[in-house]
């Protein structure tokens, strides 16, 4: 994959996005522009709306006001467009969400075969390629229940990559893992970042953020409070709320 196919192309653009859960105003006036090849880490306290925000980007949640453009396609109620967007956007969940009744290989080939209409053989080759990239080609025949958490999460990453997405969303991919397994998953994500994948990562792994992020976004109470490049963000946070948050998670 080229590092940045077109550095000036916009991958995601959110303008004035609002969302409510019933009466609860969960996202407030979100503006965010992500360029192709950019890697954004989103952090913030629990309940601040991080998951909701990235789930709006592939329409697992529906926003009620504002505009969301993904790869130039605006997300509306039009099902065809939603499916178009989802084909281009890979997602990795906190709880892996693998399909337990399918083998690792079948997990990885299901969508390419049925959504991308890829011939089975090619889909399997692709799957093995990506499983090798996340360093578990030997697990292809096993069921998810037979793997460790770290291995499952790497399968989930491979599964998303098999669709050849233009951008990847990660929702706290390491927070359900034991410390020893966090590293193997982060390594896979760093490798992905080095290949130039556009990534939007909800994470509290500050080491990861320092290493690969172009920008760190801090959210609180449904709003983006501060966004900056990692070094500035961690060394000189400007907003009081950010300072407080950083002091809590860094110590």
């Amino acid at each position: 994959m080229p590092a940045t196919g077109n550095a000036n192309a916009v991958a995601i653009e959110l303008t004035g996005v609002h969302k409510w859960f019933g009466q609860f105003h969960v996202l407030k006036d979100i503006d965010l522009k992500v360029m192709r090849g950019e890697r954004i880490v989103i952090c913030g306290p629990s309940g601040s709306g991080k998951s909701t925000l990235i789930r709006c980007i592939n329409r697992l949640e529906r926003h009620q006001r504002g505009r969301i453009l993904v790869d130039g396609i605006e997300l509306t109620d039009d099902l065809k467009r939603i499916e178009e967007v989802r084909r281009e956007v890979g997602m990795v969940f906190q709880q892996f969400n693998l399909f337990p009744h399918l083998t690792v290989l079948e997990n990885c080939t299901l969508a390419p075969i049925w959504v991308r209409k890829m011939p089975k053989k090619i889909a399997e080759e692709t799957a093995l390629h990506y499983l090798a990239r996340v360093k578990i080609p030997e697990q292809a025949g096993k069921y998810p229940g037979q793997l460790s958490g770290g291995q499952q999460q790497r399968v989930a990453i491979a599964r998303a990559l098999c669709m050849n997405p233009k951008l990847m969303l990660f929702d706290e991919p390491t927070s359900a893992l034991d410390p020893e397994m966090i590293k193997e998953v982060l390594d896979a994500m760093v490798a992905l970042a080095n290949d130039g994948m556009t990534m939007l990562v909800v994470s509290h792994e500050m080491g990861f953020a320092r290493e690969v992020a172009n920008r760190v976004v801090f959210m609180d109470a449904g709003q983006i409070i501060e966004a900056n490049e990692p070094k500035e963000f961690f060394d000189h946070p400007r907003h009081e709320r950010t300072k407080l948050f950083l002091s809590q998670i860094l110590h």
Partner: protein
Amino acid sequence: MTGSDRAYIRTRLAANEPPPTRAGPFHAIVQGLFSGPLNIAFTLFSIVAIAFAALPVVRFLIVDAVWQGMDASACQGAGGACWPFVQAKFGQFIYGTYPEALRWRPDLVFVLGALLLAPLLAPAAPLKRINALLFFGIYPIVAFVLLTGGNLDLRHFLIGRLTAWNIFGSATTAGLSWNFWSDYVATAFLVAVLVEVGAALLGARARKASFTALFVFAAVGAVVLAADLDFGLEPVETRSWGGLMVTLVVAITGIVASLPLGILLALGRRSEMPLVRLASVIFIEFWRGVPLITVLFFATYMLPLFLPSGVSVDGLLRVLIGVALFSAAYMAEVVRGGLQAIPKSQYEAAEALGLGYWQTMSFVVLPQALTIVIPGIVGNFIGLFKDTTLVLIVAIFDLLGQLRAAFADPAWASPVTLYTGFAFAGIIYFVFCYGMSRYALSLERRAAVAGGR
């Protein structure tokens, strides 16, 4: 490590050893049955109970049974089963009054069914897709033609009923009525045009909708055509069907139809479209609210009163439809239970990969949901299999019905005839139901292995 040691460092790593084994092949049995006083007491009690129940059965069925004879006189003083009775009536039990010279036809249906079903059920057998297509797509038509003789007596389709369409009179070719089939084709195109116009008015994809309509007509037409062809088989009315044959026809139709219908209803009940949901709920609750006997009575005696005059639907067919819809409603609730057990995260993972509704359902949700409810599904199948005996009350003589009819034969009147007959029927029902139950168990085990549980 002892209490006084502050620090500990292992000097030699322990090697892997096999787990300890107890001596003797009987160890597990002894351990399972006689490990303690309470266990011993239960074991002894169970042995006594089994002896009390099993011994009389064995004596009745085998030891004291009469094995040879030409009529009831052989069984007059018998203390056990009168097997010659079963032997003499065997044909009736299996085929009812199906003409004897034509019984090769149901035989062929039985054999074909078994040949197609066995590899379908065996997990290791290859060519599942073709096998399934043959069994669910082709076999029912073949069975229908063989059992009834095919060559339906079709005269009018829709237009012919509404207008005076009667161009070809009663001309037929190879058993196909020109009147009916010209009517059918005309109706198909008429409906396709209507669908296209309707879809265009609603802003939907009109061309696709009309092609779908034509496709449905073509598919249904192909099935009806096959059933309408004249293969030169002598027609046999369903009224003369009976015995195990009818039991199997009713049960298998019910089973095969109820699962897909039940799945659709369960999905409908969980649909986000309010009308679909409402229709599913009404359908399910209606059929679950009435007893099967009522359904059968209604289908047999009341339905003809509601149908337009001149339209008659075969009695067995009405019962089949009633049974299928009835069991579909129950199946829907079982399947819904399975659907509810699938976490939202599975749907989300599938959606995030770009899978559409039907793909998500067929590849992700239903395989898991159905696996969970295998016991419930098979419970329904077994219940349905046994409930088929109720068709007796609408004058369809299934296995049990033929049995009852045979009891009335004075040539076989003996004190044990009744017991023998019911023992025979019991054994047959048991073999089928127990078979289903065991098969389900093996499926569950396989699923458990696949799920890594």
